[in-house]
């Protein structure tokens, strides 16, 4: 089946079997391998992408369902001006260790800040509750999203020890 998806602002087309998951369409047809396939059972969130701005698990959608939609992957966060504030914040706050969950965490964080520019720590923890990290204990992921919120608001991120 012929599908057209706007991926990171660029119109892309593919001819896929309906049973192909959106994760596979993104990784194999569009060769954007920043979207990871983790548990493959709707549990871990490593495959998170934004569909029309909302985080979804791309292992639990068929590619054909994204036909005509806007999809943002981790590759779409940075632009010609450089990294997105969420990416800079993950780097500076050590919001990752192995990096496997990071694309999903950053996309969920970016979507949260779009909706709520000044989330509380509780809001952040709830927002990332569908995404599993096995390295960081989440502390620095939360700090990174807080720092990104501050950076986007135009104030320097609080210094961390």
């Amino acid at each position, binding site marked *: 089946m012929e599908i057209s998806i706007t991926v990171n602002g660029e119109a892309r087309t593919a001819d896929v079997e*309906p*049973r192909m998951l959106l994760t596979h369409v993104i990784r194999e047809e569009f060769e954007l391998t920043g979207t990871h396939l983790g548990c493959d059972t709707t549990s871990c969130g490593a495959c998170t992408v934004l569909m029309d701005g909302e985080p*979804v698990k791309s292992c*639990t959608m068929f590619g054909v369902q994204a036909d005509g939609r806007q999809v943002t992957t981790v590759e779409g966060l940075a632009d010609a001006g450089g990294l997105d504030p969420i990416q800079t914040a993950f780097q500076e706050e050590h919001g990752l260790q192995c990096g496997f969950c990071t694309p999903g965490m950053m996309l*969920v964080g970016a979507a949260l800040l779009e909706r709520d520019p000044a989330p509380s720590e509780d809001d952040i923890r709830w927002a990332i509750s569908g995404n599993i990290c096995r390295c960081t204990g989440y502390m620095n992921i939360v700090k990174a999203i807080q720092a990104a919120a501050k950076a986007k608001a135009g104030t320097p991120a609080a210094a961390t020890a």
Partner: protein
Amino acid sequence: MLPSAFEYHRAASLEDALSILNQYGDDAKVLAGGQSLIPLMKLRFASPGHLVDINEVPGLDGIEERDGALAIGALVRHRTLATNEVIAARYPTIAAAAPQIADPLVRNRGTIGGSLTHADPAGDLGSVMLAMGASVVLRSSAGERVVPIGEFLVDTFTTSIQPTEILTEVRVPTPPPRSGGTYLKLERKVGDFATVAVAVALTLQNGSVGRAGIALTGVGLRNIDAADAASSLAGSAPTEDAFAEAGRLAAAASNPVTDVRGSEAYKRHVVEVFTRRALTAAFDTASAG
């Protein structure tokens, strides 16, 4: 994991979707949010030959109060249930349950119609609808029928829907003033299925309990309507003792099994405690209303 091959149909209208179902019958499945059906297909527990995607069917995503009930379109996502102002103001059992369903990403996709039709005994909305005395509207090309939720939920993963019908709407009776309700859920972690959960809806009438609804999640082969517990309250004074007795009756109505989430005895105990606590919380809300 890839599901078995299937033919994909994107329905443009309800009539379109129904005509595809008429053509393929039991070999077709309706795809709404897909958060239960797609995992089942990936595990090859379900292998429909045809999927009828209703996500673009217009008119199925509304929430409005009409004729004494809240009409919730089948395609309303859990996230919308959790953020809707009418639900927050007058339907506390739904408002309490919605943010506890699965995780935020699943809530962005999962729908009320899909969740109820999936009929997982660990599903949250089945109990919510039993406690609130809701009905579902089933449409076929022959017309529509309105089925009380207790007759809709038949068994594990089994409802009374026919292969040529689509659930289009859920109707939740609007609670009168001085009503309250809540949903208490015990889960090992966010996103896990309930170890135990209890849905409660309660209305006060002249200082006594009027209508009460109590339903249980994850402790039987389907969402359990704890009707004996609820009817023990009707007409009686809303006292701690009455709520404790309802808790004991709810525990007696539960039928949990020992598994990784806990022993049978533990789950039964949680049903008793949660029922009592949920009734107390619902009473507090109702008294303030």
